[in-house]
């Protein structure tokens, strides 16, 4: 198709539509599903697999499922599907644990405040972000007061003992506390580990290595039983608070190592440039090194967050009831026997939604922080 004469002046060639075999649904199918013999076989296998399992799964999940009912018999009568009525009936328990009924507005309010606090943290284009961030920093303490009660200045709320906490609310309390405090702690530990002052360095290395060398369950046992031997007799030290501290310390040790990896990736020249401009240690870290190091560490940081969030289920072992604990306790109700599938699926779905959201957000953040310096 080589034509000798040019139909356009140099530089004036218009954009032509792409050939039809490059765009459109058919091209997509060809390119992605049928591009090679192996691909064709795999596509066929996948289609067959979906064909065999999808109908029965959907039937069980939705079409034959029972969504309302008084007890197990309501479900039996209707047939083979899932008995979501059970989850429906226990939904409040799954959400609030044993938090007193007439005080549950405090949990709801805390949740609304949590959502508000996350907006300025997660998105940087919100108006008055500065103040939003101050609020977000204060949030854990506000929520702590709201949920536990007590009086601050003139405000007074009835005290709810923390052993009434449970369910999704407990997971969020532990997860959010762990996430909010382990990141700054991890940053300090990572910086301390590369400090020039031997005392600080040795302390940080010792702390990180100790925590990483001990399973979280062990730490939780220490928190629930042994700690009372070390503390002066008669001191009351709330079990949930101990758990929060242990979970935070545990996550911060991992966080420190993730961030140290990021710190090591920052070329020395960056610090030298900061030094040469007269920046002191903390401004140089805050303005130059950490923004870059944290950006590199985002996948690892979010990974640690997700790990921490899922590890909150381990508190069952020391008698706190998170959604999984509540689910297992509900299974022994004689009115609703044999519904473990529904319970575990529901709990899995709850965790999956939270963790998947975190993972998607981390991808979004990575994309947004990309400034084209990977050339």
């Amino acid at each position, binding site marked *: 198709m080589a034509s000798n004469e040019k139909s356009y002046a140099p530089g004036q060639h218009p954009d032509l539509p792409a050939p039809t075999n490059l765009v459109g649904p058919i091209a997509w199918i060809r390119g992605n599903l049928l591009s090679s013999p192996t691909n064709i076989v795999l596509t066929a296998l996948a289609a067959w697999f979906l064909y065999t399992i999808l109908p029965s799964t959907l039937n069980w999940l939705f079409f034959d499922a029972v969504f309302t009912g008084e007890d197990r018999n309501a479900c039996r009568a209707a047939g083979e599907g899932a008995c979501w009525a059970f989850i429906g009936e226990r939904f409040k328990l799954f959400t609030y644990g044993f938090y007193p009924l007439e005080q549950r507005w405090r949990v709801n309010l805390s949740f609304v405040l949590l959502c508000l606090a996350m907006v300025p943290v997660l998105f940087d284009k919100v108006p008055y972000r500065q103040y939003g961030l101050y609020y977000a920093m204060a949030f854990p303490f506000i929520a702590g007061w709201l949920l536990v009660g007590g009086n601050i200045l003139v405000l007074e709320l009835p005290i709810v003992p923390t052993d009434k906490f449970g369910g999704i609310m407990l997971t969020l309390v532990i997860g959010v506390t762990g996430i909010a405090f382990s990141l700054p702690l991890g940053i300090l530990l990572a910086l301390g580990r590369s400090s020039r002052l031997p005392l600080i360095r040795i302390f940080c290395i010792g702390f990180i290595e100790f925590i990483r060398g001990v399973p979280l369950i062990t730490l939780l046992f220490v928190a629930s039983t042994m700690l009372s031997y070390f503390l002066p007799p008669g001191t009351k030290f709330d079990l949930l608070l101990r758990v929060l501290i242990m979970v935070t310390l545990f996550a911060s040790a991992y966080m420190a190592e993730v961030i140290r990896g990021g710190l090591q990736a920052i070329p020395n020249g960056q610090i*030298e*440039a900061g030094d*040469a401009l*007269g920046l002191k240690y903390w401004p140089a870290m805050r*303005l130059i090194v950490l923004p870059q190091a944290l950006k590199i560490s985002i996948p690892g940081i979010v990974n640690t967050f997700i790990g921490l969030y899922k590890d909150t289920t381990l508190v069952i072992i020391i008698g706190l009831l998170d959604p999984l604990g509540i689910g297992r306790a509900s299974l022994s109700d004689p009115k609703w026997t044999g519904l473990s599938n529904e319970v575990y699926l529901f709990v899995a779905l709850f965790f999956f939604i939270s963790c998947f959201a975190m993972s998607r957000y981390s991808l979004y953040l990575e994309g947004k922080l990309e*400034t*084209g*310096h990977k050339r």
Partner: protein
Amino acid sequence: MPNQTDGANQNQADQNQNANLAINIVAMHKWYGEFHVLKDINLAVTSGERIVICGPSGSGKSTMIRCINRLEEHQQGDIIVDGVELTNDLKNIETVRREVGMVFQHFNLFPHLTVLENCTLAPIWVRKTPKSEAVEAAMKYLERVKIPEQANKFPGQLSGGQQQRVAIARSLCMNPRIMLFDEPTSALDPEMIKEVLDVMVELAQEGMTMLCVTHEMGFAKTVANRVIFMDVGEIIEENTPDRFFDHPQHDRTKLFLSQILSH
């Protein structure tokens, strides 16, 4: 003082030598562990003077100029910059670093900040300049290095020559009295070298005190007051550019010149 003329400097220097020295290095030694990298360095730079430092790879050129703003620590002898002696005293180090700008071979721009933010960072956080003033000053210097239109881009989106000019502007934003350059053009393609050298020549003409490690002999001939040749950690020879290039004294210098001028 950057705008003082040479003549004025010369007179003052005659009257009161030490008071007017921008940099005074006396009998300075430095070791890296066992390795004696700088040996008995003596160098006095009056303000407004432009000095070019050259020498073979590994001769200690970078190490020497990095000692001047204490990116490297020396073990023996004195370094006095603008009347302030460099010791372990952090206050002194901070004072010196505020007065001394440095441009690196690999630019060392902050990749997560825009060009403008690169330039305003130090004035805002070190000099505590209000942001609007810092931005104004930064735009002035970006204009001087001829890239004001790139102010809102990230360093990764610029060419090497543009990045190095940003690095120069970033240093100038701190209003330094002394500028150190460590091979500012050796990571650049030939066509970009000129745009960076042009900026440096302009700076020299304005009377900035400059120490420049470079092998750009054309640049040395145009702007340098003195050329210093280093080898194996010592200053072997120092002279005016004319005499240095036309009548080198030492065999080592002759060999070096024949090597770099041969291509």
